[in-house]
């Protein structure tokens, strides 16, 4: 299951999550799965990290302090060529039943919209790998 890769070819994943236990679970799992994990606890901090480190993929929570996930996504998409193209997986516990969320989804063009409770952490990793073309499904 695990794919062992040399350090320099490791894919970089930025996990933006304010809940420590959740962040830890994700971070540990992705590290074990062979990713280079970057962490951010709020949208504003995440934006800096994203633009500086150019991760291969971003896992984004919606409800965040300082700058929420939807604003982050909007700003990210506005900024640079990198920002426009980097795949973003919305990983949240908010249902997509509000106007604002729907709008952001249409405009922010995320790779996936995953509701945390509906997914096992292993499936989340699989989805990320799938998006990055790391596994054939």
């Amino acid at each position: 299951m695990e794919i062992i890769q040399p350090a320099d070819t490791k894919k970089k994943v930025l996990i933006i999550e304010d809940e420590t236990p959740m962040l830890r679970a994700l971070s540990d799992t992705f590290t074990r799965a062979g990713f280079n994990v970057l962490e951010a606890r709020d949208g504003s901090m995440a934006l800096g990290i994203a633009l500086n480190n150019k991760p291969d993929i971003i896992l984004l929570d919606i409800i965040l302090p300082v700058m929420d996930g939807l604003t982050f996504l909007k700003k990210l998409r506005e900024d640079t060529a990198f920002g426009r193209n980097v795949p973003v997986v919305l990983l949240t516990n908010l249902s997509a039943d509000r106007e604002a969320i729907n709008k952001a989804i249409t405009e922010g063009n995320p790779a996936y919209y995953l509701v945390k409770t509906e997914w096992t952490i292993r499936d989340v990793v699989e989805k990320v790998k799938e998006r990055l073309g790391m596994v054939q499904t």
Partner: protein
Amino acid sequence: MATLYRSIRNSLWNSRRQWLSWKYLLEIIVLAGLYVVAARYGLRFQYAGGLNSLVWAQTGLALAALLIFGYRLWPAILIGSFLVTYFDRDLPFLVSAVIAIGTVAARVSGLYFLRHFVEFRKTFERLRDVFGFIFWGAVVSTFIGATIAVASQALSGIVSTHDMWNAWLAWWLGDTLGVLIFTPLILIIFRKRPLPTRIHAVRILEALVSLFIFILICLTIFYDYFGVVAGPYARTFLIFPFLIWTTVRFDREGAVISAFLASTIAMSGTALGHGPFAVGLLDTSFTLLQIFMASAAITALVLAVSFAERKRAEREVFEQRNKDEALLESIGEGVIATDTFGNITLYNKAAEDMLQIPPSEAIGRDYESVMRLENEEGVMIRSLDRPLAAALSAGKVFRGTTTSTPAYYYLRKDGSRFPIALTVSPIYMKDKYFGAVNQIVGVVNVFRDITIDKETDRTKTEFVSIASHQLRTPLSTMKWHSEILLAGDAGALSGPQREYVAEIYRSVERMIKLLSDLLSVSRIEMGMIRVELATIDVAQTTDEAIKDLAAPLNEKGIKIATHYSPDVPKVRSDKRSLEIVIQNLLSNSIKYSPAKSVIELSIEKIGERVRIVIADQGCGIPADDQKKVFAKFFRAENARSIDTDGTGLGLYIVKSVLEHIDGTISFTSVENKGTTFYVSLPLIA
């Protein structure tokens, strides 16, 4: 016949107590007295050898009295009539008695005819009353009296057979005129009328002047008062303009008083040898005069009643319209009606308050310039796309009333906007002459400001959304952490440890499922189901749903055999709803199927619909429970024993969600054999 006899007997015959009451006796005496006085008035205009009168006022009085007080006063007529014939006209006792009985019979029959054949109203409300009165009261009932009177006189030899016809005609015409002139006079003068709220001096002056002029005209015609003016015919016709004037201006009162004055003046004038009718033999001239008076009285009465009837109808229409307008005006919702050209014909207060456009700038104008309509994005909606145009052309009712449908906004005068719930309906009117055809004569818009409703809805949605987020956060943390433990990522677990953690994981999953079902139910019940139509591939959506169920499928070794018919087109529907339906149905099938069984899933096009059939070999639904499976929280007994964790909400959600996309669901099931669900979707929801 027996009934008729009984009814007449009952009305004529008082109880002993009533016969003897002083009040009754007094009434009889007064009426009999008045009868004699009225007869003396008539006798002033005697002719035909003193046997007849031009006009028998007492006949009119007697009928009026019966009409007002009822049958019971008949003895007064009997007494009055006898006194007049026996004493004033010196007829023999027996003849007088027979004539008196004939008179009573004539008056009583007059009342009977009017009551039964005309449903006569004493105030002469309707033309029916006038014509019924003329025919039954003035012509037919008098026929009886005249016939009995003249027959008794002929039999006793008072009237020779030679004179009989003339005598009969004179008698009958005298009675007829008496009824035509005096009965309405009495009934109208004593009619109940609303008390005047104030005295109109001008009106009284007009009445007095009219009376004076009318009398003057009558004197001119019938007394040659200002010398002989014009020839006899021209003079006679002169009465009509004035008769019509008093009738039109003073209603039925004007008519009856004028007819009375004209006839009295005409008779006395003619008797004194004046006027256009004083020609040749007195008999001939009086007959001519009688015919003239009858026409004048009838003309005045008919005219007055037609006028009164029309005025009343106009007033009723006016009042009804006022009431309708007041009603529409007071409705709390905005009401705007237009004609078929789109010009505003009705614009109520609530519409004015909401749009802030005064009625003067709305009524008569084109609706499009007054009710400016916008969509959510602020794009103005033009005439052909407006609900009003559809209502007008297709005769369809448009309802944009819920906050879940795309919102419409009206613009106020100042350009600001407010969201509306709008119902636009064509106004159908039955064509008066082609009753069956319903024609669209316009459109009515009913609308209300839903700013507050929208706000409430937004708050509700937000609450559900945040609450669910808060509940899910700890659940997902527990789920993931127990998952990591189970995966051995934090070191291998001992057998019992593994079991305990697995139990935690299972409970968390169960909690998550329950939460998600409850959320779906609350969304359904709060009307928050959002339907977004898109072109979707049913087969592809189904495949995705199957993929998501890989874990439970593998666990039980169940296979899904799919049969997708190639002619199934893409449909216009809501993808999320379809996913919920297929996922729920499949997960039920998996749950209740034996391990290693096969679930058959086919998609086919049937008519203008797509049908999804999911057939399993599971435990089935007991026949007794089949009616209840779509009910909220219902779980069949056998289902409960197989899977203790279910919420009983799945099929309720499926059915509710399907209703939002015009889908239907049905099933067949045999216990312990399996269940087949049939979902039908329209090609365009």
